[in-house]
């Protein structure tokens, strides 16, 4: 039993870190910029496919080997989706977000719903045409190897999946780096100011549309990197995003809207609850457990778990 608890806790924290990174991407777009993005799951999917093609299609695996190439592939997905996200914002979302909607009652929310839902459907079905329906995975021997820690008395051992551990480390590094950018740099301050009050930010000389574009690009890039990292141990099809978009929104709301670190903690909590709940409940109720905890926390703290520290990250 001790071994079960140890391994469930470890798996929860590791998976949670990856969920946390996914949630940071959405946290930037939804939590900070207040853009409701239904296509976030598809950005995750694109990250997986970009990583796959970098590793297999461009023969990165032959040059860097099966241990390094998958992580390089995941990181390459970031800049590609940053560009894609910025373009998506420039040509589509700019009409339903930022200054153009500041005076509207819903601040462009209804338009965002329709536009991003459309983008989501186009990316899913476009993905089906371009990538096909065959499940793919970024092959690495790490996905079936574990760091074994122990024994801790008797036969109790801790198994840490190597692909997930490395992915988790990369996720933490990116999360901390992004937090530093948002907290300590002029760019971060301008992004937060633009999200806080687009009109006032304009008076202060901030190019609000550019700030929104950068934030959307960053959010897309980070979710894409998370997708690339998850592709090291999951197989995926163009519809994989559907499975994760709810998790992302739960994590962002749980963590507290408007905070980068809050989104990360929210994602981590979702992953932790998902894995650890299986110790006491049937695994088929793992996702139900997430929403029970979600409702409890939102009921007790409507501003989200880390809402207080998260107000204007």
């Amino acid at each position, binding site marked *: 039993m001790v071994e079960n608890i140890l391994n469930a806790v470890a798996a929860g924290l590791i998976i949670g870190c990856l969920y946390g990174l996914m949630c940071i991407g959405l946290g930037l777009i939804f939590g900070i910029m207040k853009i409701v993005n239904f296509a976030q799951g598809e950005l995750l999917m694109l990250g997986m496919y970009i990583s796959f093609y970098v590793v297999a299609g461009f023969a990165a695996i032959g040059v860097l080997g099966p241990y390094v190439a998958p992580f390089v592939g995941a990181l390459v997905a970031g800049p590609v989706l940053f560009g894609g996200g910025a373009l998506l914002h420039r040509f589509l979302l700019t009409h339903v977000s930022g200054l153009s909607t500041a005076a509207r009652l819903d601040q462009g929310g209804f338009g965002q719903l329709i536009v991003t839902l459309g983008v989501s459907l186009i990316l899913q079905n476009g993905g089906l045409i371009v990538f096909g329906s065959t499940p793919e995975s970024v092959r690495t021997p790490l996905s079936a190897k574990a760091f074994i820690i122990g024994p801790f008395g008797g036969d109790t051992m801790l198994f840490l999946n190597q692909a997930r551990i490395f992915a988790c480390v990369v996720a933490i590094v990116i999360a901390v780096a992004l937090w530093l950018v948002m907290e300590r740099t002029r760019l971060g301050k301008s992004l937060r100011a633009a999200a806080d009050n687009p009109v006032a930010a304009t008076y202060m000389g901030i190019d609000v549309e550019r700030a929104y574009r950068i934030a959307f690009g960053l959010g897309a890039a980070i979710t894409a990197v998370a997708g690339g990292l998850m592709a090291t141990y999951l197989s995926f099809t163009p*519809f994989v995003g559907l499975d994760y978009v709810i998790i992302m929104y739960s994590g962002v709301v749980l963590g507290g809207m408007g905070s980068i670190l809050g989104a990360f903690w929210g994602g981590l909590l979702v992953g932790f609850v998902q894995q650890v709940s299986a110790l006491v409940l049937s695994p088929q109720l793992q996702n139900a457990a997430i929403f029970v905890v979600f409702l409890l926390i939102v009921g007790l703290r409507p501003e989200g778990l880390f809402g207080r520290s998260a107000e204007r990250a």
Partner: protein
Amino acid sequence: MTEKITRRTAVGLMGAAAALARPSLALAADDVEVAMLVPLSGPWAEQGILEKAGAEMAIDDINQAGGLQGMGGARLKLASVDTGATAETAKDAAQRMLSQHPNLAGGFGCWLSTFTLAATEVTERAGLPWLTLSYSDAITDRGFKNVFQTAPTANTQAEEIVPYLMKLAQGATGKTPTKVAIIGDNTAASVSFLKPIQDHVLKQQKLEAVVNQIYTPPLADATALVQPVRGAKPDFVMLLSTNNGDDKIIADSFTQYGMPATKLPLIGNGGHWVVPEMLKTAGKDILQDILIGLANWPGKAVDELSARYVKRTGNPWFGHNEIFAYAHVQMFAWAINKAGSADKQKVGDTIRTMDITDGPAVYFPGSHLKFDDKGRRVDAQLVIVQWQDGKPVTVFPEHMAVAKPVWPTSAS
């Protein structure tokens, strides 16, 4: 002189063009159409695509051999329809299929039992004869008259596979297994498979389920499922998943915990375990020695057909989904020829009363095509294949086997 084309003229011209174009798209007067309703998009799309490859080969074989003899050489056509990714979309697709193809002689699908259960509600109301490879007993427990289950039901498979595994284990290790671990999802096929196991099969075989983990697909991580197996030390593990993604995560996790199928017998169920993509996503080392219970797999008797399929498609083997689709199309051709009509009611009546051991029967384990009152194939047999050196090979029943089964002797 320049003549203006008015909007009304333009619409008229477009209508005329559409009317002229229509005959080239529509069926020729003597063509006969059967439908294939399978997932061609969504998480189960690969299964449907493989079925389509098998069905198209059967259509070509029939037409190249002179078409439907009982219909004066009419050509057989395939109406391929996508179920989408949910039971609701499968049901909608069935309705769309019937309205767009009103003269169907019959149809088959939908691979996933959950989809088949939904779609056959529609086809039954229309009186369309429907063949399915889906496993769930519930499909033919509803008193439908036009649904024919060519696969052994999940119940039958469960009752057959466990005694076989006990015998295999005993022969290899000299010990009778006493403990089993069960990991499965909560889809209709897995639930149907698990019910008889829990109800009576384990008791009959004096087996104890030391792990019994049911999950909701898709999996993000299998730690919670696989970790308890390590402590419970079962003699073998039954894996009742229904998609490649979960198969890969589960197989990877068993290897990660030092329990690959080469050390602890892992027994999967269903065609998704043996699609070519499984080899690509999981790799041959992870899959080595995993045993899979299936409703069909090409045996020695269809070697020539298998070789032709591989040559035609470039796919590495002719598998579960492909042979089922091939066989279903051949069954319809046989029934239409026998009835001398493509009328759905007559085709349905012919299938209901068929009792043959040749023709399309040779594509099914047991080589017997006859249906009982519920629409279940009499003598439907389980087939067991095993991943050996990167390829699934038939190991049971003996008359179909092309290799000997391997059971790890180091299993506890």
